[in-house]
């Protein structure tokens, strides 16, 4: 699975539009993750507050979106752009890769909630592919 030129165009277009709200969207997506899929809380057991309004959850969500922004900037080589993060997840964090799919889903939900009708089926497709590629890159070095 790879991104067409049209996919990349749509991904960049959406990123440009949402980047002022990236932190908020990230916080929203992570908040949704821990509520909809409570098992994911295991990775945040060091956070004092594990509710969706938790400042730590919001901050971490912002961090995740920041990384996605880096992937957008380096969209022609996501593997290179996220190489360090890939190592971090493989050797330190060891987040079960199934969770990348769960977060991709809540990110799409947050994007949809933010963009409404502007989150067209084609944009949904491009971002679904993009997040799947990011997930694959993050799991690349696991074994």
């Amino acid at each position, binding site marked *: 699975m790879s991104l067409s030129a049209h996919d990349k165009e749509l991904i960049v277009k959406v990123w440009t539009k949402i980047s002022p709200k990236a932190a908020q969207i990230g916080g929203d997506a992570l908040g949704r993750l821990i509520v909809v899929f409570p098992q994911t809380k295991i990775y945040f057991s060091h956070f004092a507050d594990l509710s969706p309004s938790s400042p730590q959850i919001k901050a971490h969500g912002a961090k995740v979106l920041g990384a996605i922004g880096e992937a957008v900037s380096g969209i022609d080589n996501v593997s290179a752009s996220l190489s360090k993060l890939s190592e971090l997840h493989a050797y330190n964090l060891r987040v079960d890769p199934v969770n990348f799919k769960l977060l991709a889903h809540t990110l799409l939900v947050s994007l*949809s*909630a933010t963009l409404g009708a502007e989150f067209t089926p084609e944009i949904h497709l491009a971002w679904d592919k993009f997040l799947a590629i990011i997930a694959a890159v993050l799991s690349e070095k696991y074994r």
Partner: protein
Amino acid sequence: MVHWTDAEREAINTFWAKIDHEEVGHQALTRVLVVYPWTQRYFSTFGNLSNATAIAGNPKVRAHGKRVLDALGDAITHLDNVSATYAKLSQLHSEKLHVDPENFRLLGETLIIVLAGHFGAAFTPTIQATWQKFLAVVIAALSKQYH
């Protein structure tokens, strides 16, 4: 039997009352066919599905989307016995339509995304969790008669 809290029943029924079955069904099915194009295989009699615009404009897609949402309404009316309510539908999907149950999950996820698009921030994490639970129950019921 599935246990539903009062809050969950309310979240499901309140949002259901605000949903336009035809519009939401149409959007959800259109998105499934666009985002997961291999699902078009199940709709070979629907005519032109050659691109996103064709899919969105296809009247059979619209009609079928509404049908799916109407069926979801049946589950909502019988929240305490979705399995029995869907016994025949489950048989149909298994024995006649041969739909891989993975596709139920894809449609479920897509429907959540469509609801988020319609309701924005009002589709809170808790409400999303309730709807995901409901759709999981629906998917289990639809998969039940598969051998």
